[in-house]
């Protein structure tokens, strides 16, 4: 029981402090700090949350309220890559539900779930501003446009599913 709240890494601290440098209050960078730590660790654990709160001199409960408000702050572990599937109206017209079904069949996951091998997490996302290329999704940091359901599993490199 040496350390209940593990320290933030030097890289994380440097990035957070760079944000604090141009903010009037430390807790003003709450969202930035959560994003920085998530970028390094993949998600925000209770321990990370407490460490960030302490660094920003705010209560962990208050920071939890902020963290859980935002859809892209993950308070659970996620897979190596998050699939953000746009399910807003233009992508829905163009068949995003078929893509979702493909993920269910091919990866065995629905919204909010992670594959057993921890490679993918599937989440719905708000209109990605690429409606002229619907349906679209983000695979990690990459936007995929005009996604073809038949080729989706090949793109994801999953086994047991052939593109037709």
């Amino acid at each position: 029981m040496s350390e209940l709240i593990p320290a933030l890494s030097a890289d994380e601290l440097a990035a957070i402090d760079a944000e604090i440098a141009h903010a009037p209050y430390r807790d003003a960078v709450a969202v930035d700090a959560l994003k920085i730590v998530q970028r390094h660790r993949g998600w925000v654990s209770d321990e990370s949350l407490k460490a960030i709160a302490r660094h920003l001199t705010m209560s962990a409960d208050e920071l939890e309220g902020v963290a859980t408000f935002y859809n892209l702050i993950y308070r659970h572990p996620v897979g190596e890559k998050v699939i953000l599937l746009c399910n807003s109206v233009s992508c829905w017209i163009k068949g995003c539900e078929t893509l979702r079904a493909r993920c269910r069949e091919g990866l065995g996951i629905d919204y909010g779930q992670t594959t057993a091998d921890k490679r993918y997490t599937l989440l719905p996302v708000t209109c990605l501003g690429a409606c002229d290329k619907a349906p679209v999704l983000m695979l990690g940091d990459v936007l995929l446009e005009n996604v073809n359901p038949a080729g989706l599993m090949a793109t994801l490199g999953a086994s047991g599913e052939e593109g037709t």
Partner: protein
Amino acid sequence: MNALDRALTHPLTRNVTPERRPFDLAAYEAGGGYGGLHTAIGKLTPAECLQIVKDSNLRGRGGAGFPTGLKWSFVPMEDGGPGHKYLICNADEMEPGTFKDRLLLECDPHQLIEGMILAAYTIGADVAYVFIRAEYLLAERLLREAIRDCYGKGYLGRNILGSGYNLDMHVHSSAGRYICGEETALISSLEGKRANPRAKPPFPQVSGLWGRPTIVNNVETLCNVPHIIERGAQWFNDLGLTEDAGTKMYGVSGRVKNPGCWELPIGTPIREILEGCAGGMEDGYAFRGLLPGGGSTDFLVAEHLDLAMDYGTIGKAGSRMGTGTMIVLDDRTCPVAFVQNLVAFFARESCGFCTPCREGLPWSAQLLAELEAGRGQAGDLDTLAMHVDFIGTPGNTHCALAPGAMEPLASGLKYFREDFQRHIDGRACPYCEREAAA
């Protein structure tokens, strides 16, 4: 069209070539970029710039269409003592069916930065933020590079162009929540809090970010500013085909042949955008209706296709121009399911602050889902109409998310009532049956 002609008629997209990387600072300047900056900073007073923007009749392109010059004029200009004034660019673009700001951000970041510098100069802001949605990673990177280059060139930082004017610019990447686009929620979010909207008054122009005077403008709005300052208010007014001024980024998505986004004179007829630019409906699909400016605008139908896409005309037809990016409903897509998708989206994204929105939107979405599943009941359409009345009446909710959510439902019930009724009478979605049979 040669470059100068294009700059005069298509100011926003004169540099836009999606196939290549956007212009860097040197290329942007070689094409006449930062001309507005050199025209104004140190040569025109902020009051003179404000007058030009007022005279231009530029209206906000973020959805509400508020006159930009008028909005800026509410910022107190007397030396307010210590403390900052802020300019914020709203690059949250999450309105369903809206894909215009991404194009401007990814294809010409310096245009936005120039517009922001000029807007900040006009209102006397010394700090500017770009509030950008998390998923726009390329745009974020390009903006950061462009801002760095502007500091290097002396267009940002201290004593810009020797004028004594100072401006710092930062990029804030959001963490994903539609309500952040509402300007007071955006301010809460930028302060590191939950993005709950705030009561108005006080308006942000007087008391915004950290209680200081703040202007929030949309990406497209700000991108217009350099051209207006450089070429003048009259030129901008002359661009519009109707009473509105300038050009507009119009978009079409849905089952059309050539979905896309185009800069056209404001007031271009809907039909010209839908048929001329977007190529009309895909083969095998017929037009039934469209939302003219994003997911929170009322349906228009065939009888409206010859209307001019401007604020007043679309308003008189019972809808809103909104963001100017249309979503087309075709004859093989179920209008009930279409509306259900939207209402469920708004229910998911409600910030939960006020009861009609937090409770009423999920209720409405659930009723629509039941209808779509063939489990609708006799009184359901009346219940939906009650929600439209209650949630949709401005003033019953703390912000405009909830009334916006009711616009496609209210107008859907009006124009596609038959479809709603058939779901109840037939105990099934007629569109699903047809798809299954096909």
